[in-house]
């Protein structure tokens, strides 16, 4: 279909989610042109440490070079094309060696050695030959990092990472500032869960404040009831129960009181406050460490930041106050991989890590008490959109009521579908469908 007819200001045609041809165009025009989160610097501490990662359709690696720089390289041997790494992570040692004919590469991708190299004498691949640079591993066009979070871009042109993030870089500022040492450290465990649905369905859900009270009522109520029983027994539930019971104790109408901020490039923020600053001894000890590090005024500023979720379109969802993120790797038009990581606040008491861990285990593990119902919805949505039961996906809620100032759209109503409309503004720009 003509892409220019597929997206209107308040509705989107279903083919945008289900047409394999459009998915291929999205790979080329969006995922091969944006900044893709590839990992955190603390994942690759020592020279030779690497993690494999998918950028758009491309299998790539993030690797630490011996001079300390981090490189993002195509996971492909320049000789006859074998992937150089068949495993997910490890240490390459001083050189990367191909398992097929033993070409060797430095950890920055430069070709170091070709066995029996005289076989190339007089060819274009000979040292000094016209194509001798093709002996090196191909690099991502650009690699930049922000506060330890590394991104790669397959396009040489376009905004810098900093420009592209814009104000949405608060995702990383908020996460890192909450550490007394001003930085976070990755916990080297990745939960990987496949959603049988189009990637955009997941992104639209991330800032959908209308759904939690409906979709997650069962878990909310269950956590609430057990919390009450624990109180009756004279105990109290860990904070992680509260994150779940909030879906029961926060009625739909209350979600309207939150706000969304919608930035250029499709990034959005849902503000919210789930009681992350209780007055228990653990929180007080943490605040003491924060006060020592920043002084009281700055600490209040940092802890006062009111973010629930930041979405960095099209591939990353960050929950900064709980130090977690979900990276989106589209595998096909109806298949999406999410990679879920969490972080430790450097310099914070262990109890604060336990808080993030509780959320990571209960909400983000493959035995999630929350996402089971989200993923089930996503599959049902995709099935519905693949049907002829209707042509359009509605994003009419509070359309025309958004406040725009300096390129930032504020929805004063939490359940407004402004974030979805904003995502499609970016989509239309990337896809050249204006």
């Amino acid at each position, binding site marked *: 279909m003509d892409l220019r007819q597929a997206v209107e200001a308040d509705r989107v045609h279903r083919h945008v989610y289900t047409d394999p041809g459009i998915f291929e165009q999205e790979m080329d025009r969006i995922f091969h042109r944006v900044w893709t989160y590839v990992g955190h610097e603390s994942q690759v501490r020592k020279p030779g440490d690497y993690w494999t990662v998918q950028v758009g359709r491309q299998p790539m690696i993030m690797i630490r070079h011996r001079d300390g720089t981090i490189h993002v390289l195509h996971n492909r041997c320049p000789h006859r094309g074998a992937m150089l790494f068949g495993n997910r992570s490890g240490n390459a040692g001083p050189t990367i060696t191909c398992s097929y004919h033993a070409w060797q590469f430095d950890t920055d991708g430069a070709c170091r050695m070709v066995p029996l190299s005289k076989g190339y004498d007089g060819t274009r691949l000979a040292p000094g030959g016209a194509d001798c640079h093709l002996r090196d591993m191909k690099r991502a066009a650009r690699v930049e990092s922000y506060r330890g979070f590394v991104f790669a871009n397959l396009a040489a042109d376009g905004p810098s990472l900093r420009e592209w993030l814009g104000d949405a870089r608060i995702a990383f500022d908020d996460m890192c500032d909450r550490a007394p040492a001003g930085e976070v450290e990755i916990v080297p*465990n990745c939960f990987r869960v*496949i959603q049988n649905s189009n990637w955009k369905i997941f992104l639209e859900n991330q800032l959908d404040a209308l759904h939690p009270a409906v979709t997650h009522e*069962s878990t909310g109520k*269950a956590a609430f009831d057990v919390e009450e029983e*624990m109180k009756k027994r004279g105990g109290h539930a860990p904070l992680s129960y509260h994150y779940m019971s909030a879906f029961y104790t926060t009625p739909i109408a209350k979600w309207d009181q939150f706000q969304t901020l919608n930035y250029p490039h499709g990034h959005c923020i849902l503000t919210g406050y789930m009681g992350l600053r209780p007055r228990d001894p653990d929180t007080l000890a943490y605040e003491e460490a924060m006060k020592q590090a920043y002084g009281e005024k700055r600490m209040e500023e940092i802890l006062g930041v009111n973010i629930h979720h930041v979405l960095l379109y099209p591939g990353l969802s960050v929950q900064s106050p709980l130090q977690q993120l979900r990276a989106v790797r589209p595998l096909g038009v109806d298949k999406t991989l999410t990679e879920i990581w969490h972080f430790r606040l450097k310099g914070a008491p262990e109890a604060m890590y336990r808080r993030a861990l509780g959320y990571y285990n209960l909400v983000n593990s493959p035995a999630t*008490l929350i996402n089971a119902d989200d993923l089930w919805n996503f599959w049902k949505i995709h099935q519905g959109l693949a049907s002829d039961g209707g042509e359009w996906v509605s994003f009419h809620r509070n359309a025309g009521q958004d406040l725009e100032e300096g390129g930032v759209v504020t929805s004063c109503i939490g359940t407004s579908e402004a974030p979805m409309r904003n995502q499609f503004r970016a989509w239309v720009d990337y896809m050249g469908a204006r």
Partner: protein
Amino acid sequence: MATMSGDDPQRSVEQFLYRQAECLDTGDWQGFIDLFADDGIYWMPADPSQATGDGVPSIFYEDRDLMAVRMRRMMHPRAWSQKTEWGTNHVVSNVRIEKHDAASGLLVARSRFHMMEFRNDSTRHFAGSYIHHLQPSPDGYRIRLQRVDMVNAQGLYDYVLQAWV
């Protein structure tokens, strides 16, 4: 019900494991939870090299209270993803008693399981090992710790797990 006194421990542990599997396969969630001691833990490590579930990422790390949340969720009339017909079949085998303290009766048993799940008109397979730390009680064993190592713990999960394995 399996009793301990007078029984061959090998046989009574096997009967206990079969009973636990039956709870899962018949959806007797409360029966499953009641097999755990008051401070018992059900743990599925995120990574087979983990020695404890305390303070590290886990797929499951649940005491009886968290198990109660999981059970109540599954039984809620609007647990949407429970609407589709589903069921499991566990086969437990290779049962070995690794430690048996005669004085306290505490016992560590290792076994292997294979689970087939039917859900949403398709099937999935999970397999791995159990380690049960069991303590005697007047009406049979109680689980102090059950460790469940899935062969594919580190792999991709196509959809998620809703009940214990």
